[in-house]
């Protein structure tokens, strides 16, 4: 088992992978944000300078967090959760808008984004509630309570027009499923997503036709046939949902979001029009795909990316940082980043499974799931696999709040994990 020396109880694999990503991320921010000669790596007026300071400060934060007693997090999880909710509510009064989202506190010279910290707080609250001896996740009553815990911060964030960060809370579905949420949620969830995409892509009529085949096929394959009314109801619900989806897409959705979906699913039949649309609405996506593509096998080399230097991809140092990797480090570098992310997430999930305390396990699982959603949406988006959704790439994208948010998220777990031996 573990050595008794306290320093070696921490999972060094996680820590190394974490810093590999943060370090490599910083190099890419340096490349994406520098203009002209680099004079001061700690310059407080340049993104790369600030990010380096954030990284250094995050080391301080890590030391602080690892020195706090592991039990503290479990004991104070509710307090932390409510404090986090308060910080989110406070935004409605004191918040500052950047790019249309009111997600920041202006602290004079620097900004703080509470939603980045809310993820860790929610994970703690979920872990606390699920690990409670009285909680039975199979009961609908408890499901509702957990749902409320998750939805409150998500809803607050959505109100601040930060749709991307809201989606992250979907990560908890994986956690709850792991902890025993009935399968039916997974099935219904998958069916709903399938239904929505089908309705958008092929229209309501074809969708209903396909649904009917599936529903009646299922119905007649059963030996003991339930009431005939069941498939009819199912189909009616499916019809309603299809209409709702179309209606939302056609009338409710803001133009820019509608365009993103149109491009993602190639809903526009006229190829020339679609191309034109891509050029306008999906300028970022087009440039980001081109930049990644321009890298080829080996990339153009560190600080040699002409599209990066020319700032062809907007927001490249934040949400689109992966394009810098693509252009300058090529397939080899991009693959390495994907690989390290996968390894980090798998490592965390593996450690979570090893936990003896349910609190630690649920929390660890949450950490893995949250990282996974970020990874999936961000890289999927810059490569055009997923409609454009603004969400940072953990440890890579520029931003102090984001970096510290993930630092806290991951290192609470590192601390919990180190305490595994003391658990019973």
């Amino acid at each position, binding site marked *: 088992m573990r050595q008794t020396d306290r320093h070696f109880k921490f999972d060094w694999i996680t820590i190394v992978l974490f810093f590999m990503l943060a370090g490599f991320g910083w190099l890419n921010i340096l490349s994406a944000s520098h203009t002209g000669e680099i004079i001061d790596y700690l310059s407080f007026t340049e993104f790369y300078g600030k990010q380096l300071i954030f990284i250094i400060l995050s080391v301080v934060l890590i030391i602080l967090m690892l020195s706090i007693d592991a039990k503290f997090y479990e004991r104070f999880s509710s307090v932390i959760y409510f404090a986090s909710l308060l910080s989110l509510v406070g935004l409605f009064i004191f918040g500052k808008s950047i790019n249309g989202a009111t997600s920041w506190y202006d602290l004079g010279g620097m900004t703080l984004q509470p939603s980045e910290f809310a993820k860790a707080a929610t994970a703690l609250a979920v872990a606390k509630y699920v690990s409670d001896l009285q909680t039975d996740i199979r009961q609908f009553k408890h499901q509702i309570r957990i749902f409320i815990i998750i939805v409150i911060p998500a809803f607050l964030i959505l109100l601040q027009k930060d749709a991307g960060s809201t989606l992250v809370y979907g990560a908890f579905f994986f956690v709850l499923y792991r902890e025993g949420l009935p399968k039916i949620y997974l099935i219904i969830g998958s069916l709903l997503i399938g239904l929505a995409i089908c309705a958008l892509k092929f229209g309501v009529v074809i969708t209903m036709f396909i649904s009917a085949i599936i529903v009646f096929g299922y119905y007649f394959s059963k030996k003991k046939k339930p009431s005939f009314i069941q498939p009819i109801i199912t189909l009616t619900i499916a019809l309603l949902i299809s209409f709702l989806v179309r209606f939302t897409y056609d009338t409710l959705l803001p133009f820019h979001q509608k365009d993103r979906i149109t491009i993602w699913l190639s809903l526009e039949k006229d190829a020339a029009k679609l191309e034109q649309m891509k050029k306008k609405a999906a300028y970022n996506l087009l440039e980001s795909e081109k930049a990644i593509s321009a890298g080829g096998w080996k990339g153009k080399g560190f600080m040699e990316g002409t*599209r990066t230097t020319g700032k062809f991809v907007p927001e490249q140092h934040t949400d689109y940082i992966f394009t810098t990797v693509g252009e300058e480090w090529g397939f080899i570098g991009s693959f390495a980043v*994907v690989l390290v992310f996968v390894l980090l997430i798998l490592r965390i999930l593996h450690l979570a499974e090893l936990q003896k305390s349910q609190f630690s396990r649920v929390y660890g699982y949450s950490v893995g799931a949250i990282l996974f959603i970020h990874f999936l949406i961000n890289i999927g988006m810059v490569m055009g696999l997923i409609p454009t959704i603004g969400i940072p790439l953990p440890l890579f994208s520029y931003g102090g709040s984001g970096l510290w948010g993930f630092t806290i998220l991951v290192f609470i777990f590192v601390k919990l994990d180190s305490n595994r031996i003391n658990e019973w």
Partner: protein
Amino acid sequence: MRQFLLFISVILVGIIFTVRLFYLQVYNSDADSILNDNAIRKVYDYPKRGFVYDRNGKLLVANQPSYDVMVIPREVEPLDTLEFCRLLKIDKERFDKQLKKAKHYSWRLPSPFVSHLSKEDYAVLQEKMRKFTGFHIQKRSLRQYETTIGANVLGDIGEVNNRDIANDPYYKMGDLMGKQGVEKSYDTILRGRKGIKFIQKDRFNRNIGPYKEGTLDTVPEQGKDIKITIDSELQAYGEWLMQNKRGGIIAIEPGTGEILAMIAAPTYNPNDLVGRKRSKNYTKLYNDSIAKPLFNRSLQGVYSPGSPFKLMNALIALQEGVVTTNEKIACKNGYNYGNRHMGCHCGSGLRDMSLGIQKSCNAYFATVYRRILEKADNSREGIEVWSNHAKSFGLGNFLNNDLAVGQKGRIPDKAYYQRAYPERFYSTYTISNAIGQGEVLTTPIQLANMIAAIANRGFYYTPHIVKAIEGETLPENFTKPKYTTIDKEHFEPVIEGMLEVYKKGTASSLQVEGIDICGKTGTVENFMKIDSVKTQLTDHSIFVAFAPKDNPKIALAVFVENGYFGSRFAGKIASLMIEKYVNKTITRKDLEKWLLTHSLENEYAKPYSGEPFQINRGSQYQVIPMEDVIDLPEEAKTKLQR
């Protein structure tokens, strides 16, 4: 099972991402190379094109700045077409056409959109260029001709076409290259090497600085100046004399092989083929299929050499020992062979070699020619011997010189007649070769070279147009003498005969006081198909000469289409050219005036008139008043007054 959902999802997403990365970066990669990276602007820095000077250092061709509007189709954004067209002075139709053409060439490489803007248009446009994304202005240098003469010598430069680009990747769309004349044959020397500046752009198409601190940029290499062998004064004078006539003149310095003058008539002003008016004017010249101003008659005109070729037969006969200089051969108003007769205008009598040349006696040369062929066992071997001697003068093949165009001409040999007469072959079959009419074909430059070899008494230098290239030595091909197969001593009797041509013979009216000119007239029958009927036209007037007899300074061949007797047009021109070059003054003003006031345009119009016409003696000369004569070009004037 439950714990695997996320595990599997993570691994699955990792794999999907890897596949997508592979697709984007490797399989369907649009990897940038520095030349097609659209974040890097390539700015070409065109070097100065080398200047062209004449043999006396007179500047003939210099440069002038020109501005082209270039387009990179894939960077073009919607623009105010109307305003843009107005600024460029083009219409919408042209706009669409040019854009389509550019797209056809390349979406990402610049193509010329509108070439050669005037300085005024450029000044206005430059201010507004910012508004038209995807378009930029490229500065180039155009030719500035400091002269109105020598269009056929100097040539011109024009935009490269797709084939040129395929042949030499150095060229990019819109580049200029030599298309004719010296510009073509010395293009790589004159053009230098363009430099490239790589500039980092941002997404608003603005320059943000040199790419990699400019370490990959190349500095343009200046084009080298060249000095050509042409004497612009002589060239101008010759072009002036050739007005209203068609034909060619080649004058060579026998001691070096340098081409002193290369005149092709009709000609045009080289300035007509500069800049925006080039394509219009070029098409006009190109479409003139009757006068063919772009056809360099002095290099490409393949004609029967006529009587000047008798000199060659005389030399071969002496070399082969089939005749002595003193042997007298009888002319009975022509030459009878078998039951046929070849006429002669020399007036019958006994002819030795000198007299034969002087009077251009057909019978004398027919006799001599047959002896050459019959010396060997059979005439097939004889014709081969004869052919090899003639070829050693540079006839019947390309001269391998530095001129952009040329023709082989024809000196028939054994193999040639083997095809024509596979069964039997007698010397009489080819008797016309004796007087330069039959199968023998030459270009004026070949004939001039032959005369240069005679003037040198047995060798020649490959005629060439370049005298000096900045910082380079001339190729050995131009500086090493090429020896003919005729021994030196055989030339003197022939040259004596040529001198007699001037003193007492067919060119006695063309003497120039103080210069011993050796010459030979030629009058060449020629035919044309009119409505598929072979019709004879007025004879071509030919004259070859060199002067002075000792230490010759100039050898030339003059060819005037349909000018009738050799002495009538060609001979007069030859005499004047020699006087002009050797003495720098003209005493035979009478010849000059006659030439300038006599036009052959009516002669050239005959075959196209659709009416029956008379030739040779039946022709009426078209006399034009002196007032209508074009002024002597500036180039020739300056020195005449001095």
